[in-house]
């Protein structure tokens, strides 16, 4: 049996005085695709942020193992170098820093961590072009500032492009589908599917079932009020879509 890439046990986290994650358990194995669904405000982005190492959140209880290592004691950059990737719900605009410079620095940092030589300019360009094609990103973007002036869809595609460049072991996609039209959604989904591999796992956070028609998950979880209240197969996503979140809220209240 393979070792899990991610093990979350009884994770509690808060911002200021309010507890947002209230005992999350989740185990993900390499090669798997997990979907996390749930109404707005359930704590989905909070979970993603805590995993990526955002400092605004305080973990008050529980543990997270990433490939067997204690994730919570690593800095955000160490997590990235170990192979964790978060596609942001709201990618940040960074004026004056070109996409190429940014990705070259990031990629060489990861390579250094893996004991590899830095890439030279030619090798790097080749990889960039190849990965950009995966999500139909125009090479003209390479010299533009990171996300600056990008449309919502371009920002999301740029996240998947970065994912393709950095080749993480675990990728968390936080509402990468929101705000995408059907064509862009397909491009993103095709990109993700092309990146699926037996060593790589995905956690796909989404509010809607739509994306899961294209990226078929192995497991579907429902996060509600800071807890995973239901876990099932891809049919659970369809059921949620059909019955709406009220159905799950009622169930949760019954169990509470």
């Amino acid at each position, binding site marked *: 049996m393979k070792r899990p890439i991610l093990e979350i046990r009884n994770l509690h986290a808060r911002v200021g005085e309010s507890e947002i994650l209230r005992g999350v358990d989740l185990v993900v194995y390499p090669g798997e695709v997990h979907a996390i669904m749930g109404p707005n405000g359930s704590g989905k982005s909070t979970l993603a942020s805590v995993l*990526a*190492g*955002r*400092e605004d959140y305080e973990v008050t209880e529980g543990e997270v193992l990433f490939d067997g290592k204690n994730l919570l004691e690593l*800095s*955000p*950059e160490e*997590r*990235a*170098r170990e192979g964790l*990737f*978060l596609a*942001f719900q709201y*990618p*940040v605009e*960074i*004026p*004056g*820093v070109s996409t190429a*410079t*940014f*990705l070259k*620095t*990031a*990629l060489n*940092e*990861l390579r250094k*961590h893996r004991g590899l030589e830095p890439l030279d300019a030619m090798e790097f360009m080749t990889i960039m072009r190849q990965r950009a094609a995966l999500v139909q990103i125009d090479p003209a973007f390479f010299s533009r*500032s990171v996300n600056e002036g990008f449309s919502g869809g371009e920002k999301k595609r740029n996240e998947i492009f*970065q994912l393709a460049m*950095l080749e993480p072991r675990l990728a968390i996609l936080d509402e990468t589908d929101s705000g995408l039209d059907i064509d862009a959604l397909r491009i993103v989904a095709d990109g993700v599917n092309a990146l699926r591999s037996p060593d790589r796992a995905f956690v796909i956070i989404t509010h809607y079932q739509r994306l899961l028609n294209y990226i078929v998950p192995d497991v579907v979880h429902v996060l509600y009020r800071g807890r995973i209240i239901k876990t099932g197969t891809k049919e659970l996503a369809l059921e949620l879509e059909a019955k709406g979140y009220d159905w799950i809220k009622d169930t949760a209240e019954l169990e509470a």
Partner: protein
Amino acid sequence: MTTVVAQQHTGAPIIERIAGEFARQFSTSENGQPSLIADLRLRALEELQRLGIPTVRHEEWKYTNLFPLLAKGFTHVVGGAVQPSALENMTAPLQRWGDVVAMYNGRFVGSRDDGQVLLSLASALAADTALCARIGSLASFDDKAIVAWNTAFLNDGVVLRVPANTTLERPIVVASVLDAREHNVVVHERHFVEVGSGGFAQLVLVQRALGDGESLLNQVLEGWVGESARLVIVVVQDGPPRSHALTTHTIELAKEARVEMITVSIGGGFVRNMPEVRLSGSHADAHLYGLTLADGTMLVDHHTAVEHRVPHCTSNQLYKAILDGRATGVFNGKICVYPDAQKTSAYQANRNIVLSRRATIDAKPQLEIYANDVRCTHGCTVGRLDDEAMFYLRSRGLSKAEAEALLLTAFAEEVTTTIPISPVRDDINATIEHLLHADELA
């Protein structure tokens, strides 16, 4: 006791020493110097004596205290013997930027004087009384102690005269070499630039320190930009902490003329820049950009003055600073719009990033607007690096220091990209990147 305090406030001992030096240099023999200039010097000295050294009580010097600087004790020097190879070594790397003219302790040296376009001020003044009369007409020393000091010791400098409709292909690089091998030195330089109508010139001003002593450059430049002409001035201040500068660069623009002044202050100890632009012809256009990168106990003061004297002119000022250590940044940006100068557009922005709790920034916009139909905006921000951007970069594997360096480089490059001379821009960007990454290792 009280007298000592009072003396310190007026800087009387300093003025006394300056007057003594003046007597030594000029009163004995004014051999060959036109009396107009001798007269100008004397009036300048008298004005300096009247004003004294400005203290922090002076509105224009509120944030910048000259006394600790002047307390170092500087000896006035002019020219002197220097091995050509020593100058060569300092100026050779600058050949990349353009045609280099070296000033050694305030003396024009070398064979660049062609008697026409580029010549030494000393030789030009000897031959041209009309020029003598114009010296000081733009950079007046009334109420300006630093200009008065400079004018009292007016000796030499560079005269650049670009004929009408002429483009200087290569930038002129004025390398001010200050030789402090024997003692601390103060050097006065006086430059004169005239770009004829439809002409174009690019000037790079850079300061180099020789020896281990402290050196202070007091540099005044007067420039006239004719109708539809364009002048670019890049000031590169990248010296060691023992190298100091007081600059007064005053430019007047005729109709449809354009000036771009970019000041990059990434080195030195005490730096005070006083660029002044007078928009005197309609549709003239002034661009003033400044970048400060200061660490240690460095002080960089950008004190700008843009005067809109006639209608339909535009001006744009962007000054940015990154301050670390115990550095001090000062920005005082003055915009003056004369009553007749309707349809003026004047913009000013001052952005600062303060990296250390002991670094300080003092910023003051100073708007004097006497016309009613003007567009004028100004803004000042003081902040730290954007947390969201930092997290985004780190979440991709960049260390905190690397992410910081990348963001700071981007911040700085908004100013350096305005340098139109690409070898200068590239070298400065490389230096900035190096400086910002050096921090990373510390």
